[in-house]
């Protein structure tokens, strides 16, 4: 039985499928299969050992995924402008007071605003924190 050949075929298939599906774990399994093939070349026909070694390699790779992939993941990522509002300056559109929320315009977006002070329409504010639909604002200092 040429197990190493079977392992090699399995590894090839896994890697091809990985390329088609982008799930990432198939790549680790493929590398595990490659390791098993290597073991088979050294100790022929020790199937259980090969399987265990292959699984271990795949598991270890999985556990150390983060440090391994940190280099590869160089994408800039995407920052949602609407959610990066803290520290920005806005203008009050409708009066804000502690017991009645108002409306603030930050950049091109209109949000409901809460504040601990009374702020009149037209004044500048700074965004302190963001809730899911409300912004905490304070008067703009300076």
């Amino acid at each position, binding site marked *: 039985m040429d197990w190493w050949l079977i392992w090699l075929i399995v590894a090839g298939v896994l890697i091809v499928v990985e390329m088609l599906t*982008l*799930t*990432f*774990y*198939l790549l*680790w*399994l493929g590398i*595990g299969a490659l390791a098993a093939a290597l073991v088979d070349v050294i100790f022929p026909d020790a*199937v*259980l050992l090969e*399987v*265990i070694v*292959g*699984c271990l390699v*795949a*598991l270890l790779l*999985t*556990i150390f*995924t*983060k440090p391994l*992939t940190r280099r590869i*993941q160089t*994408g800039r*990522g*995407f920052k*949602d402008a*609407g*959610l990066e509002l803290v520290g920005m300056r806005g203008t009050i559109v*409708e009066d804000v007071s502690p017991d009645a*929320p*108002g*409306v603030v315009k930050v950049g091109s*977006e*209109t*949000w*409901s605003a809460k504040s601990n002070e009374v702020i009149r329409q037209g004044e500048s504010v700074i965004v302190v924190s*963001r*809730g*899911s*639909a*409300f912004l905490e604002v304070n008067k703009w200092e300076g």
Partner: protein
Amino acid sequence: MGMTITIVVVVLAVVFISLSIKIIPQQRVGVVERLGKFSRLLTPGINILIPIIDHVRTYHDLRIQQANVPPQTVITKDNVQVKIDTIIFYQVTGPEQATYGISDYVYGVRNISTATMRQIIGKMELDETLSGREKISSDIRIALDEATEKWGVRIERVEVIDIQPPADIQDAMDKQMKAERSKRALVLDAEAAKQDMILRAEGDKQSKILKAEGEKEARIRQAEGQRQAKELEALGEAKAIESIAQAEKNRIERLREAGLDEQVLTYRSLEALTDIANGPANKVFIPTRAVDTLGSIGAIGDMLKEKK
């Protein structure tokens, strides 16, 4: 036996590994529960889970989403039933609250938007609703935000796509518009007629004034001509009279120079008497002056004698 163990080990390893690596695409987020309790959010990129104790409860899309609300019948302030078709733009801003705060946030967002819409349109007149989209959008904001704050959802905007008044109202609106337009047309017609009349009258007045002015001018000129002619005539007459008088005066002067006296006169009177006597009348009344004159005949004879 060895084969079975091998297969079991392989299957276990494959399942374990396949469940422990999760690649999350950008702008999606997963909510992870560790043994039923919320533990963390899966961020975009590669994430490692521990298969037995970790479980991904749900995924959320963080992009702005649109939900089309089916046409609703809403009653305006002036009691008109309008069919209103809206679209809601919303975004998940708090994935935890969107998971644990409300069972189905999409359904919730639709319902709350519809209800708030009803409320706001119920405070507006029909005409306002047809033209006040901006107002509807801004009015709806705070009301919605207060409700959706706990759901981790922010309603970006509510847009009114279409407002359909009932057919008879639409008909009335059309009629109103037609009436408005025909009114405008009539008014314009009337204006035109008025302008026309005014202009005609103006023209008439002007022409009459000009005619009168012309006549006046002509008459004045005529009168002036006549006056001048008369003056000239009078002057001529005066001159003629004067020259006649002058001539008479000259004649008398000449007569006087020729020595006109009693005798000549007497002679002339006699001649006149003979003339009278020769007239066709049978009776001749001789004025007293003539008797005197006859009486003076003797004197004449004396005179004649004296001459001899």
